[in-house]
Every structure is written in C-alpha cells, then in structure tokens.
C-alpha cells in the first residue's frame, strides 16, 4: 500500500488476524504440549525435570504457554459473545475469563522458569 493514510484495523479484523497467527504458531508447538503430557505419565521426577529444563524444550513450552493464552482468550471471547446476550454481563464475563487465563499463563510461566533455573533437580518442597 503506497498511500500515506493511517491504516487502522477494526477490532474484528485484529481478532481475526491474531487468531489465525496464533493458530499457525500453535501447530508445531502442540508437539511439546503432547510430549509433556505423555512424559508426565511415565517419567521419573529426575527425567521429566531434565527434559523440561533442557533449553529448546523450555523455550518451546514457554512460547506455547504465552501463545496458547492469547489463542484461548480470543477463542473464549467469541464463544461468550455468542451465548451471553446482556452486554454488561457479557463484558464482565469476558474480562473475568481473560483475567483467569492470564493468571494461569503467568503461574505456568513462573513454574517453567523455576524448573529451568533449578535444572529440574529440586523443587521448593512446600
């Protein structure tokens, strides 16, 4: 586009675009989600700690957490918009769900960083 106009996209356009971008990113990242769930069913604590703490796995999982959070927020938003008719309740529910997802992602990221820094060897054993 060669014009000098400011291109402002609508909310819906941005949502559409972000949902597509996060979807494409999640296609390869799903592998790590599956591997993690698979290994957690059979690995020893030492083995799974070592697997998560290894740099590529930790990075992939961290990126997965962030992008999954964004993808979930976008997806849940359209679901709520479809089924909740009254506007204040809809907006409140969307904000509440967004907050929950963000808190979940933050907690997961912190746990991941902790595992990386302790090299999966010892937890802080509550």
């Amino acid at each position, binding site marked *: 586009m060669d014009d000098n106009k400011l291109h402002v996209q609508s909310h819906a356009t941005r949502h559409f675009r972000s949902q*597509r971008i996060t*979807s*494409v990113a999640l*296609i390869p990242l*799903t592998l790590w*989600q*599956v*591997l*993690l*769930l*698979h290994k*957690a*069913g*059979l690995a020893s*604590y030492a083995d*799974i*700690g070592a697997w*998560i703490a290894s740099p590529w796995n930790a990075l992939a999982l961290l990126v997965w957490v962030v992008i*999954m959070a964004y993808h*979930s927020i976008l*997806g*849940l938003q359209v*679901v709520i918009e479809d*089924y*909740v*008719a*009254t506007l204040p*309740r809809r907006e409140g529910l969307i904000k509440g769900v967004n907050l929950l*997802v963000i808190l*979940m992602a933050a*907690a*997961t990221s*912190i*746990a*991941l960083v*902790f*595992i990386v820094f*302790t090299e*999966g060897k*010892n*937890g*802080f*054993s*509550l």
Partner: protein
Amino acid sequence: MANRPLSPHLQVYRLPLTGLISISHRMTGVLLVFATALILWLLVAIAVGESAYQLWQTVMTSWPGRVVYWGIIYALMFHLCHGIRHLLWDFGKTLDKAMLTGYAVAELLLSAALTLAVYFLP
C-alpha cells in the same frame, strides 16, 4: 435482567457432518482450556517437588485419569485438524460443496490417526 434466550438449535436440528464437526471444534476448544489448567497443575507440581509430581502422576495414570488423558489428546488432535481446515478455508481452498463431506471424513480420519500415533510414542 435475565439473559435473553437463545433460539434452540442443537436440540432441534439434525446437523450434517460438517455442522457437527463445527460445534465439536467449539466444544473441544473450550475443553482444551481445562487441559491447559491440567498442565498448569503439572508444572507447578514439578516446581514444588517430587511428591507433588508423584501425586499428579498417580492421579493421571489411574483409569479415570487415563480416560481424561486420552480425551484431551483426541480433543487436541481434532481441534488441530479442523483448525487447519479453517486455515485452508481462509485461503479460499477446499470450499467446493461437492467435496465438503469428503474433506470432513478425511479430517476425522487424520485426527484419529494422530491420536493413534500418540499411543505409540516411546
């Protein structure tokens, strides 16, 4: 003010295969948010320590845990395959009416194959 009622749809219409897949895509999407919560529990448990991890493992390797696990894996593969079909649609591909059910069946077979592949992971 109560929520305005939704016109009945799922309870009323017998949906074609493509419609059933569409609503399943939405349902698996919502369910997978709970799968993400399960992973949150797992990673926090590993950060906390060995006994917390073993609790997760005991719960998830019990037979109800295995039902949940395979449910998540299938939901994930289903959502992934249909998501890819959405992306193809976005590029204007495979929208021909004649092949709609054909592609729907292909997509279901692929998600089943992927779920089976997970079964054979080392």
